[in-house]
């Protein structure tokens, strides 16, 4: 027990220290960083190879939506793969990346391998690239007009890269600084700390800072993955624990033992639903998963959500019973606001002329919402802010003894 406690304390301390340092360590190495006004820049480029085909050279420059985007495959807390945009600096030589161009809408199909856009730009597939739907990763066999689509080179290997360069105007005149493989480009904002950008995101006149990226910035994703691993393990342990508990209930035939059967049934259903979940949509391999997810789980979720409508009706009935002066006031204002937002409310008072337009129901409803309602809302918001500050201070100074312990 003592050992576990020590491990918990050490891991928590290291994690806390890590996140604290991540907060305070600057994104570029102090002392060797350079900061000045941007005069011009040369975009970076990257060569990506798929299989045995020749590498494809991508110029990383913004042109409509056609800037090649570097994506890295990661998994979320539920293990679902997702593509995350990365900077050129983060894609080292030998790294596995997906490159996506688009989304765009083809105006004309030249042939299954090439299309042209409305502005005359022609896009053609190179070996290793494929058409995909919209901004997603679902492949499509042939390009179509009128529908957003993209070009993707999936799971390519970075063969070489050129990080580009930036021309700065400094006190000593115009200087050109080439970017290294690990150089971070920070665009400084007028207000706030700014953030890391790609070279082609800079504009002439921006103030930028360049320098070697610090380790903490680079390992931010690693820390997030550590969190993902712990969460995934917790899910596994939770499932095992639940399985053991329900097995015990079944074996000992405790009260409501038959409900435990549903647990195992639900787990089996979840496993079946998970098989083929990441296959291409519309394929036979994904049909079973789609059936459980879209036909069973989604339907049950919708049914639960629809319960709200009935509950709302019951609650409204109770709330709108006119028993007191306050209830009557609420009922009246609610009636005016509801009627005022419908065409029927407009119709009810439209017989009054322009000179009495202030008495039209939509205008009265608008006034209620704009004046008394807004003032109350603002008052409540002030209260929330003050209360939140007071509570935060109480926790900070360990005054909230019921939670932070102590006598």
């Amino acid at each position, binding site marked *: 027990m003592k050992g576990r406690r020590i491990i918990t304390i050490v891991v928590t301390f290291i994690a806390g220290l890590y996140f604290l340092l991540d907060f305070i360590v600057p994104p570029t190495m102090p002392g060797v960083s350079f900061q000045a006004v941007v005069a011009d820049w040369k975009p970076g480029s990257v060569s990506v190879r798929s299989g045995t085909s020749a590498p494809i050279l991508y110029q990383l420059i913004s042109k409509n939506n056609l800037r090649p985007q570097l994506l890295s495959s990661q998994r979320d807390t539920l293990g679902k793969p997702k593509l995350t945009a990365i900077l050129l600096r983060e894609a080292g030589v030998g790294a596995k990346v997906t490159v996506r161009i688009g989304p765009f809408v083809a105006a004309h199909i030249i042939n299954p391998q090439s299309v042209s856009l409305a502005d005359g730009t022609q896009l053609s597939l190179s070996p290793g690239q494929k058409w995909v739907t919209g901004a997603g990763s679902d492949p499509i066999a042939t390009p179509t007009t009128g529908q957003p689509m993209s070009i993707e080179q999936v799971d390519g290997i970075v063969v070489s890269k050129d990080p580009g360069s930036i021309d700065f105007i400094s006190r000593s005149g115009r200087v050109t600084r080439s970017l290294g493989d690990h150089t971070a480009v920070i665009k400084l904002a007028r207000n706030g700390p700014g953030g890391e950008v790609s070279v082609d995101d800079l504009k002439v006149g921006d103030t930028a800072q360049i320098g070697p990226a610090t380790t903490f910035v680079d390992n931010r994703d690693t820390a997030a993955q550590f969190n993902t691993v712990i969460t995934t393990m*917790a899910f596994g342990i*939770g499932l095992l624990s639940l399985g053991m508990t329900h097995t015990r209930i079944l074996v000992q035939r405790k009260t409501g033992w038959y409900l435990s059967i549903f647990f195992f049934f639900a787990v089996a259903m979840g496993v079946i639903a998970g098989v083929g979940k990441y296959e291409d949509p519309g394929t036979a391999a994904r049909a079973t998963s789609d059936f459980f997810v879209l036909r069973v789980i989604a339907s049950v*979720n919708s049914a*639960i*959500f629809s*319960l*709200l409508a009935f*509950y*709302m009706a*019951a*609650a*409204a009935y*109770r*709330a709108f019973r006119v028993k007191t002066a306050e209830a009557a006031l609420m009922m009246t204002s609610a009636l005016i606001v509801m009627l005022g937002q419908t065409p029927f409310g407009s119709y009810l008072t439209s017989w009054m002329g322009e000179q009495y337009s202030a008495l039209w129901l939509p205008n009265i409803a608008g006034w209620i919402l704009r004046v008394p309602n807004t003032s109350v*809302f603002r008052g*409540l*918001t*002030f*209260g*929330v802010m*003050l*209360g*939140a*500050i*007071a*509570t*935060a*201070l*109480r*926790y900070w100074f360990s*005054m*909230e*003894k*019921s*939670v932070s*312990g102590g*006598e």
Partner: protein
Amino acid sequence: MVAIDEAIGRAAELGTPVLFNPGTEDYTNIQTLAALGVLGHVAGKCAVFGVPLIVTTCKPVMVPICEDVIRSSYDKAGRPELMHTSEVRFISTQSDLTALGAAAIMKDRRVASVFLFGSYDYTSLLNSEGGQLAGCMQIAGTGEIYQIPFFIASCDYVVMVEELFACSSYLSREPVMMGSVAGQDYGKLFLLGIIAVGIVVSTLYGIGNPINGFERLFVF
């Protein structure tokens, strides 16, 4: 807030448990932290009266935190042996399923009183109507402005907005804690003063106002 003791007393008389829900957010939400303060007080009273306490949550991380809060309150009340009568139940990560699970518990265990404190999403009504259907006495408190009407419609007592943050301090009756509540009130007074000044200045000098002293000021 006095009704909290009344609700626990009702459970003691009926010999049935009370249910506490600390909202749909985790401990990083300030409203959840405020709710934990109330949970500490409720757990302490439950320990004194020997009332079983059930806590339901949709956040797994809240389970050990709530357990610690309850344990601390039972220890403080001098009844640590009754700790086993309380239970913290994680039902589902989905707040609507948790609300339905809690409603089932209210019915099955014949829960006497329900406390809904903390931050709530659209499931506020699912939670409170479950208690209403089970015939529970319900006390709710949230800082989510849009959920307050639902609680008012379904609950017996509602602790509104900043009262939620003052609740645990008020219940503790400690001078230092009460000082923070007084600080909140002085803060509100200060803001009220600024609002009053703003109204006067805006009326006299606001562009587009009927009096429009601003334009008069610059007419030569």
